């Protein structure tokens, strides 16, 4: 069957996609809350003020979460999914928990989807936690990426959390991902 093509999220996505608490997978006051944040930048290095990011992640124990409630958060249930729009400086932020390894020895990551006005189709990428250097060194994806681009997939640590910038184009361009069934659908 032929898959339906994507189209840009456009300039007015806030109307349809924003809702209260969308970027708070846990309340920022949660004792284990971390701030995952960064900027979305264009090919000139200028901020993209009308982008929207989604993250999808395992819980801190590495379990894949099957809980509904991402749209109406109850303050207690961790759903593993959130959405954040960029502000006029191109900055986004999430309050969340750090994902755990879903298998022993694997490097934990956030799966990230990027949409923006001017971007005709969504982009996929990963934001790895920076800490487990052994797991990062043996990660099959990172291993397959040219060394000078690997860092685009790894968040950096700061006192209260993690920084992950997305460069849509040009110097330091983020590595974006595609998957076998996408390739086959559109071969």
């Amino acid at each position: 069957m032929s898959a339906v093509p994507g189209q840009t999220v456009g300039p007015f996505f806030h109307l349809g996609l924003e809702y209260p608490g969308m970027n708070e997978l846990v309340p920022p006051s949660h004792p284990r809350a971390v701030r995952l944040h960064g900027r979305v930048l264009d090919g000139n290095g200028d901020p993209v003020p009308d982008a929207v990011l989604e993250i999808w992640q395992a819980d801190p124990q590495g379990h894949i979460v099957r809980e509904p409630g991402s749209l109406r958060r109850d303050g207690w249930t961790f759903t593993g999914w959130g959405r954040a729009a960029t502000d006029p400086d191109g900055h986004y932020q999430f309050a969340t928990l750090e994902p755990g390894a879903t298998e022993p020895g694997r490097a934990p990551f956030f799966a990230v989807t990027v949409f923006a006005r001017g971007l005709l189709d969504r982009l996929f990428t990963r934001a790895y936690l920076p800490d487990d250097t052994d797991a990062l060194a043996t990660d099959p994806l990172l291993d397959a990426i040219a060394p000078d681009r690997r860092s685009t997939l790894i968040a950096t640590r700061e006192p209260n959390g993690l920084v992950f910038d997305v460069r849509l184009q040009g110097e330091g361009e983020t590595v974006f991902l595609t998957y076998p069934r996408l390739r086959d659908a559109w071969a």
Partner: protein
Amino acid sequence: MESSQADMNREIEAAAQQPGGPQPKIDYPPYRSSVLRHPKQPAHLIDPESVELWAPAFGHRDVADDEADLTIQHAGTPIGERIVVTGRVLDGDGRPVANQLVEVWQANAAGRYRHQRDQHPAPHDPNFTGVGRMLTGPDGTYRFQTIKPGPYPWRNHLNAWRPAHIHFSIFGSDFTQRLVTQMYFPGDPLFPLDPIYQSITDPKARELLIAQYDHDVTTPEWSTGYRWDIVLTGTHRTPLESDVEENA
């Protein structure tokens, strides 16, 4: 030095000479805002793993039934042509995507969004917000009632107008199936002039974005009906029967 529609038509035609296949070309200069916002490196192909093999779960606690009716969100009735839009969300192997979230947003009948950045001097409708949410049923069916949106101008080039459309956000049963797109209405004279629609250079593929008028969805003395089925890419994980129950 703003381009005219005639300039745009030439650019669209030139871009169609190098077909980009059934997906939108993300490098598509006729859509001016895309120039600095698309990656130039090819996407890296990987086998999905861990969370990428799953999609977030949504349930009835997330979405109220009346969020699928965009005509009852205010004290009065919105102005315009009342329509019902329905169809099924299917994965690339034809399996229904059950219990999954569909979000829609759109302009009102006059072509105006209820959004601060929409400066089109067409009237707002105090009785229309233009936002809906719903969950697909066990057979993947979604359905919502709304007002047919109007076409609207934008500043891509001189006298640029978007064909009437409804924005859709759809989740599949794994992360890789995530889709944001736009549904169009049959026979729109703006199709050949619109660089966003034409960024899909394969005519058969872009026609997948056009709903069909369906008289069986039309109801007497009330509304006209459109049908639009949404086929996602394939899942990388064979969905289990229990997926549906888990999500319920």
